[in-house]
């Protein structure tokens, strides 16, 4: 029966090797995370004696900042992993021997900034992403493979 009805594979992928890679997305995402962390830090707590409306407004604003931070930290992580797994090739390791370590640490920072939400972790992420974006430009030989 199995021989008669051989099971074929139907792909439900999204992995066309389009070859379009850029570093704007990670920079933009890391910058957004940094801004949100800064805004969260600067947001004034209304205090225990504040009115209900003030408390609701505070929690609403804070929640919005957190949502955007989480979203862009995730985008940043995804895009870093795409560059790592799809773009960077073994020959790039000759130019940047600690590439794996840098990308690994940057993706870890994406998770850390989600967990902590501090300005310090967001700054570290921004710096790590800038470093990888610079490596991308260095090995690519241009600022981006396409313009928006």
């Amino acid at each position, binding site marked *: 029966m199995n021989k*008669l*009805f*051989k*099971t*074929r*594979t*139907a*792909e*439900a*992928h*999204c*992995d*066309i090797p389009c070859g379009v890679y850029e570093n704007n997305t990670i920079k933009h995402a890391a910058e957004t995370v940094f801004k949100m962390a800064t805004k969260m830090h600067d947001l004034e707590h209304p205090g225990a004696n504040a009115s209900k409306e003030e408390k609701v407004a505070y929690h609403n604003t804070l929640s919005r900042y957190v949502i955007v931070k989480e979203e862009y930290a995730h985008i940043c992580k995804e895009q870093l992993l795409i560059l790592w797994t799809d773009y960077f090739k073994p020959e790039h390791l000759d130019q940047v021997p600690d590439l794996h370590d840098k990308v690994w640490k940057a993706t870890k920072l994406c998770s850390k900034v989600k967990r902590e939400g501090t300005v310090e972790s967001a700054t570290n992420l921004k710096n790590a992403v800038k470093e990888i974006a610079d490596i991308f430009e260095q090995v690519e030989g241009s600022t981006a493979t396409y313009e928006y």
Partner: protein
Amino acid sequence: MCIRRYKITGWSMTPSLREGARVLASTIFRLRLADVVVCRHPVTGRETIKRIVRQHEDRYYVEGDNLSMSTDSRQFGPVTEQDIVAKVLLQYRPRFRVYL
């Protein structure tokens, strides 16, 4: 044989068809909107599973149910009836086996 068995790989058809799902498909079919079909990928030539979302004359626009994880007619354009190799009839669960 006009009936084929397929195993799904990838996530572009979730939640309807998850990674690893098995389906039966017929190579004799009449196409309608919302049918899930196996078509030849215009770029890679591999058999790809998508849903028909729009028809314009003899061209069919196919998309994955999970748009954010699908490469489909939004990228590679419509497919013709010749590109469609089978129409999915049903999903089945493979028999549970124990190997000793």
